[in-house]
């Protein structure tokens, strides 16, 4: 069900006025009413989107190689690394390089006692109200493994965009590490990568 509603929300609406303007720009008598053209256009566009969503896979979108952090890394070092690489989250690995979790801004904020739905604004609000319990100090001496979200939600390289977006919505996640058969992380797909799909679509046209 979720899939359908997402597809329907794709903005493929062109107005009859748009079509009339386009028809004016094309010389010659076009033997179709703007309404009929619109119907054909919408059906064709939906098919094109379907095709796109079902042919592009994780491999086409993912960022690779991925910044990965060790579960034993302390939070200060991890925060520095994420900041330096300008990413808001990363897969967490054990000593065998196998993925064991995902750590993100949310996990840091959660650890700082910001509350149930951690966000940057939540933290600002929290710290302004309670100077005392604004405990960034809590992050000292903790390791990534302690605060990471686990088990990680992961995907396989052959997953379609369609499946990936459904998973993002269903699991309320923002990034999906892509792992190979041996459990090693080969890439990561973020919501931003998904957004870029639409520009891939434009290029194809």
């Amino acid at each position, binding site marked *: 069900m979720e899939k359908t509603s997402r597809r329907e929300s794709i903005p493929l609406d062109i107005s009859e006025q748009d079509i009339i303007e386009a028809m004016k720009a094309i010389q*010659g008598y076009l033997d179709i009413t*703007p309404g009929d053209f619109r119907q054909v256009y919408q059906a064709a566009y939906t098919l094109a989107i379907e095709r796109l969503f079902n042919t592009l896979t994780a491999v086409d979108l993912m960022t690779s190689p991925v910044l990965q952090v060790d579960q034993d890394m302390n939070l200060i070092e991890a925060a520095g690394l994420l900041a330096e690489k300008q990413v808001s989250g990363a897969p967490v690995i054990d000593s065998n390089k196998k993925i064991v979790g995902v750590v993100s801004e949310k996990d840091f904020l959660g650890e700082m006692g910001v509350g149930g739905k951690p966000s940057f604004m939540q933290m600002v609000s929290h710290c302004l109200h309670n100077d005392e319990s604004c405990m960034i100090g809590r992050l000292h001496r903790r390791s990534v493994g302690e605060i990471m979200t686990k088990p990680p939600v992961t995907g396989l390289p052959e997953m379609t965009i369609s499946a990936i977006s459904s998973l993002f919505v269903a699991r309320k996640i923002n990034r999906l590490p892509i792992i190979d058969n041996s459990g090693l992380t080969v890439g990561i797909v973020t919501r931003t990568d998904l957004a870029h799909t639409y520009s891939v679509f434009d290029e194809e046209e």
Partner: protein
Amino acid sequence: MNYLQKMKGSGQSPPKVRLIEVLWSWIGSFLGIAAVSLIHYNILDRSGLAMIIGSFGASAVLIYGAIRSPLAQPRNLIGGHVLSAIIGVTAFKLFGQQPWLAASIAVSTSIALMHLTKTLHPPGGATALIAVIGSDSIHNLGYLYVLMPAALGAFVMLLIALVVNNIPKNRRYPEFWW
């Protein structure tokens, strides 16, 4: 949308074409009809044969005035006239004693056949009708009506369409042959 609401029409009329399009439509149709009628009046008429039938006026609208239309493509032009002519002559031969029946069978059956063969060409309906309601000289042609005027006339008009419609830079004909 209920039955009566449908009758109001909810769509919009397509835009008017540019003046240059009007001009080329005029030139093409003038030359196309000139070609078939010159042959008709100067060569064939005395021998009781025909080259022009009323439905060619309608074909001219399409193949010179709406050249992008699927209805105006060679397959439709030739196929529509030929198939409809066969149906028309056959209807007259079978039901000629009841002209109303022959006429209605001719038109309705030719529309069905054109649809089934992807050769829908509105003037074909007229070609079928003329085979029934036409003059004695048309009736005397028998199945020759299919070949001449229907096929040959349509073919001459097609030649003119190919020549004229491809002269302007922004016009091309046909969209497809078959």
